[in-house]
């Protein structure tokens, strides 16, 4: 995302800093990876549907083939003791990145203090009770939004 910001705002000047923040906050609210959504929004703004498609394809094509190549290497050599040993370390660190992202988001100002209960409920329902996500969200998300509406009154 920092790279996307530098390219869009500083190098190409397709967006002002304010426009970028505005688009990013919308994209964080919508489903899908934020950086993909930003690409789609910017593409839409400049060239409509084809712009969105071009931005998406431009963002994803190279990483798609790179990751498949890495996947192929992993399949080919993953069973070697040295590789699988390294991967035990890499996977553990990758898990740490996810944990950090969760904590970062949990302590950000975007999480209003009175709403933390819904984060706890979500964690229990999904991580501990292993409820199917769709079923859980249909129940929890409307309740959470309703609580937020009520708190704002």
């Amino acid at each position, binding site marked *: 995302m920092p790279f996307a910001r530098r390219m869009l705002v500083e190098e190409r000047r397709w967006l002002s800093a304010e426009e970028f923040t505005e688009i990013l906050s919308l994209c964080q609210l919508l*489903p899908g990876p934020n950086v993909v959504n930003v690409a789609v929004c910017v593409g839409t703004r400049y060239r409509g549907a084809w712009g969105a498609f071009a931005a998406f394809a431009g963002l994803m094509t190279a990483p798609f083939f790179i*990751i498949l190549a890495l*996947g192929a290497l992993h399949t080919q050599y993953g069973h070697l003791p040295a590789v699988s040993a390294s991967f035990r370390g890499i996977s553990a*660190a990758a*898990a740490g990145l*996810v944990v*950090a992202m*969760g904590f970062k988001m*949990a302590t950000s100002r975007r999480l209003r203090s009175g709403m933390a209960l819904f984060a706890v409920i979500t964690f229990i329902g*999904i991580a501990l009770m292993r409820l199917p996500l769709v079923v859980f969200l249909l129940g929890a998300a409307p309740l959470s939004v309703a609580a937020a509406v009520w708190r704002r009154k």
Partner: protein
Amino acid sequence: MSEETLAQLAMDFSALSLIAVGGAITVLPEMHRSVVEVHGWMSGAQFADLFALAQAAPGPNILVVSLIGWKVAGLAGAVVATAAVCGPSCVLTFAVSRIWQRFRGARWRAAVEDGLVPVTVGLMLAGGYLITRSADHSWPAFAITAVTAAVVLATRIHPLWLLGAAGLLGLAGWV
């Protein structure tokens, strides 16, 4: 692999697409449930490996679904899974980005945001919990997870350095 598998990939991942607020991490628990627990396409450890690859590679983390699709049904699987997980959310973003400007400053817009953030936080923490349980099978592994999380929170170091260092520790036989 059969067309049935491709159809299953398309269905499962397009359902995930519209609930992936915040990206791949939010739907990590559900991906794990579907891929490991429901379909048994791979073990938890394999899932954790693929996710680690996606974290280390350039591009959005959501590309882990390309890897999953590829593992399950080859190149066709990769294309189908990627299109399924990106298609619906991209169409929604495209549609909303054309009308959103009109609601700038609307009060319900802020309330929707306030309401969705705690659910996203819960999902991200759940994702961290589940992927840790899949990836870590020894105390040193748990220590690496904890230290990585702490370093990311405390510093601005690029995550690739941490993945690399952890890989070296693994190579040295410590994990």
